């Protein structure tokens, strides 16, 4: 083909043409894209006794809300338990079934546990599946001492014309992209719409477009985080890798290292510079500027023809030709939507907690670029991941000593690089291993036939073998459905059960799983 790093190839055709996706038959660093063995998650299970919550142990609680992160870390201190909330969101996803409806009850439960007092709130990034819960009214009764957000979020304030405003356009870009997808029913379009919905928190782009002044979707959640919990921004802190974070007094025994997102000097890792120009150009190059959004019509209707104007030959099957060309259409819109998705995921705040000799790694939804920055400590991102060298010793050592890992991006293929699992799993025999927690819901995103299912079966298998993998969809939950006001029970995903950790205890309630260690 003729160019460019910004084009997409059509489907899985061979890529003499396009630079972006060709089938790489060698093993790539960040993707679990081999043909996987479709083994179910057979685990030896023992009923965990709901042992009394030891007040002096560190606890991590994962609420089952569906497809979304909602984590609470309870830190025992001399002045009593202190609470760190890491994300609170859920999103319906491509299938529309990602939101189980339990988030309101979960937030209520959080209020009961914490008394509405949060020492620290961490928003890893601004996707609906990490922040939608902050739209729940109850949050107005919460108070937080401090709110942490990823570095890049500070440029997404309410000043639309600020020179630094790199993110303010995401909403607009996503909204105009979504309008382009109107009327498309194919699966790629559905996935792209889901990505855009996740980026903006908007369900109905048509309605949102008619009332631009009203803050909707994620904007409402962000207002809650920045204005209410963050006291009009006064208590909001923005961090990138390498920053020394400021902790509230209650948590001074906690040691925190910020591993991601890459700092401003390394913004190439986020593909940040590309976004506005890239997505903007996609839109620009594909729409008819004079008549508003709409595809370019290169020729007037006088030039339109029917197949009967073309020669009749047995070898020329026009139906087939139409089908072949249609299915070879590059989905630039989908590429643009995916760009926004990856861009936001890569902003994720990646946090390492150390407390009482235990290490906890919360990776948000970090993807390739975010990981690469600290795993390899490189100056510039890799263009060809097949050429990755080994990760640096410091990162390896860190991964080998973690006690807890929050699995990135709900266990999807692009968020836990193979070398990370390899390094984390490669421990001396005497080591007690680690617990990985994955908040996910099967069947919401992706397709096993395309190796895109979330959670990725292959990754789950590896984590299951190498660590004690706890999935949010392994427990049944019961809650009040806000639409019908009736009690509703959701069963665990088939074949997914709660394991027994080597260290500490797991307990479950009707809304969450809690790990004490």
């Amino acid at each position, binding site marked *: 083909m003729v160019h460019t790093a910004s084009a997409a190839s059509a489907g899985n055709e061979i890529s003499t043409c396009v630079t972006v996706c060709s089938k790489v038959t060698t093993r790539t660093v960040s993707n679990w894209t081999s*043909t996987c063995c479709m083994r179910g998650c057979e685990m030896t299970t023992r009923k965990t006794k709901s042992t009394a919550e030891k007040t002096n142990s560190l606890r991590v609680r994962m609420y089952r809300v569906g497809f979304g992160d909602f984590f609470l870390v309870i830190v025992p201190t001399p002045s009593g338990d202190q609470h760190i909330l890491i994300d609170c969101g859920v999103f319906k996803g491509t299938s529309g079934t990602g939101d189980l409806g339990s988030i309101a009850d979960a937030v209520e439960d959080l209020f009961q546990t914490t008394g509405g007092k949060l020492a620290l709130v961490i928003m890893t990034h601004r996707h609906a599946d990490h922040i939608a819960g902050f739209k729940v009214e109850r949050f107005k009764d919460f108070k937080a001492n401090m709110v942490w957000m990823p570095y890049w979020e500070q440029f997404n304030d309410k000043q639309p014309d600020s020179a630094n405003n790199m993110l303010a356009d995401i909403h607009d870009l996503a909204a105009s992209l979504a309008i382009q997808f109107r009327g498309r029913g194919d699966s790629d379009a559905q996935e792209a719409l889901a990505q855009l919905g996740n980026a903006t928190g908007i369900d109905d782009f048509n309605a949102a477009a008619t009332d631009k002044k009203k803050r909707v979707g994620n904007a409402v959640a962000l207002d809650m985080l920045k204005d209410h919990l963050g006291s009009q921004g006064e208590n909001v802190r923005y961090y990138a890798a390498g920053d020394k974070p400021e902790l509230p007094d209650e948590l001074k025994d906690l040691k925190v290292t910020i591993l991601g997102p890459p700092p401003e000097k390394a913004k190439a890792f986020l593909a940040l510079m590309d976004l506005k120009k890239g997505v903007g150009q996609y839109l620009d190059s594909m729409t008819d500027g004079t008549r508003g959004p709409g595809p370019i019509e*290169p020729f007037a209707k006088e*030039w339109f*023809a029917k197949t009967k104007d073309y020669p009749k030959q047995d070898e020329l099957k026009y139906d087939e030709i139409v089908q072949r060309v*249609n299915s070879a259409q590059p989905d630039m819109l989908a590429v643009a939507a995916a760009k926004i998705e990856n861009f936001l995921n890569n902003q994720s705040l990646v946090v390492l907690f150390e407390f009482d000799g235990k290490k906890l790694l919360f990776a948000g939804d970090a993807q390739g670029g975010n990981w690469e920055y600290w795993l390899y400590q490189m100056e510039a991102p890799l263009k060809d991941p097949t050429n990755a060298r080994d990760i640096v010793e410091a990162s390896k050592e860190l991964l080998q000593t973690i006690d807890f890992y929050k699995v990135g991006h709900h266990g999807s293929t692009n968020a836990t690089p193979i070398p990370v699992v390899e390094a984390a799993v490669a421990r001396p025999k005497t080591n007690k291993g680690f617990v990985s927690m994955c908040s996910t819901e099967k069947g919401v995103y992706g397709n096993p036939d395309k190796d895109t299912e979330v959670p990725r079966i292959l990754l789950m298998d590896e984590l299951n073998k190498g660590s004690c993998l706890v999935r949010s969809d392994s427990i049944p939950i019961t809650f009040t459905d806000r639409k019908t006001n009736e009690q509703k029970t959701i069963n665990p995903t088939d074949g997914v059960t709660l394991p027994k950790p080597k260290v500490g205890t797991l307990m479950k309630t009707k809304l969450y799983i809690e790990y004490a260690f």
Partner: protein
Amino acid sequence: MPTTKRTLKAAKHKSTKSKPKRKTSTLADVFEIPTPDNRPIKCYAFDPSHGKFFGNEMTLRVKYEKLLPGPVGERIAVIDYDGANKKFYKPVNLDDPSLLIASGISPTESDPRFHQQMVYAVAMETIQNFESALGRRIRWRLEERLPDPATGKIQPGKRDGDIWRLNLYPHAMVSANAAYSPAAKGILFGYFRASSVDPGRNLPGQTVFTCLSHDIIVHEVTHAILDGIRTYFSERTSSDVAAFHEAFADIAALFRHFSHKEALLDTIQKTGGRLYQYHLDPDALLTDGNPTIQAQKLQDNPLIGLAQQFGEARGTGRALRSALSELPDPKKMKNPNLEPHELGAILVAAVFDAYFTVYLRQTSDLFRIFRAGGGTVDSREISGPLANLLADAASKTANTLFKICVRAIDYCPAVDITFGDYLRALITADRDNHPSDSLGVRDALMQAFRLRGILPEDAQYFSEESLSWSPLEPGTLPDFEGLIFGDPNGLTREERNHNGDLLRQYAQANAETLGFRRREFISVPSFHPAFRVTPDGSMRIDMVVEMAQKADIPYDPKRPALGTFPMRSGSTLLITKPPFKDGNYGAGVIRYLIRRKLDGPYGERR
């Protein structure tokens, strides 16, 4: 008096007496007009943004064939279906008398029929150039013939994935891109709106058609041709393979520039004969600092830039790529972060370095005479006759190098090509065709590749012999009985089936020597006879055969759970038809065997 068909027919009629004698009226009716050799068709030499200057509006002469509206010919069919708007556009009928007289529609951006006409003309011209270089009729990609799992036999006949006629879709999609797609059985050209901020010579937001860029058409058709010759170069097994496909397509497109006489003359005038210069001297001299009128602006050299309009429309302010984009730097090849087009640019630069070196050698005497007659090298004033001679030398040299580059394809390994392999192929192919190398082409190529750090992995010395493939030692493989070499117009279906079966049998029988695992299926994705005239005037006939074997390799032998990925071993064979002896042709002799094995130390590394 020449014998016409009609008189022959008349003679037949007379002898058979099967039909009554036909009445012949006028002389014109008796003498049939001979079929023309070629058809003149107007097109852009570069793209619409170059306007009418530099001979940008040119007439190509493509081989004559009867055309149906489309144009739909024998090898290619232009089908103007727009996948974004879901519409067909009216097809051009190049056999319409008014268009025949006018050499087609005059270049314009607004008439889709001109777009169809240009795509047809440039694609046909590209095919012709390749056929003349390769010495055979090219064919498109065919689906791999695999044995029927039930019978273990290969079914004869066509397959769904075969491409017998390449479709060209001039307005297939909205995209700043064009792509050869075997799935779509053709080439999809995109159109898009130029950048609204920095569109270069385009209007902000104007619609730009990739199908009107001469370079882009040649580039994509070259992808399609290469895909028909080397089936597995489109599998991205290493960064070199993808880069090679791109580089090769760029090389083909760039060499076309040097066949555009008017553009060539203009550039020679504006560079003082130094064709490799980045910029042209402005028409009007720059007096102080900034240009005030357009004639004073420094223009890019159109000959070494690829797809100028396209590049500018995307807001880059320059051509998409260039023949000489980088300064030679042997370390750059080792940078693992290069994207295929960037890596490919190194190969392109190496080839064009060699080209300009040969051009300068070729023309050094002309420049000496020029200086002896009072001319100065610094002056950009070059006399008309000298410019003509330089243009001749430039286009002849371009043609020579293009042929060398194309012929080398037959000498490339079947899978996993590296740039170093291509250098070996270039040197070996040229030694076969021009043993004496009076122009010093091979030396120029070797030096240019070395300057850029491209070397074959296991070369012992930096000499022609050491940089060629070593010929197969006699006796290593048995001679090949019964292969049909056919003639330059191709093989019949029966001959193809016969050869296919024979080649697969031969591969199985000699699997280990050929570099394959025994008792596993070896496929023969392609075989082509090649006909070349040797320096002594005789004809050499070779059969170029690709063989391949697929194996599933575990990602990590220690952890089979990670799954497997397919890898191929492949071999290229050059089988020569022996000379006529005692009234018979002997068995085919295998001259070269170029292997890429899966097992052994080389396989481990892969």
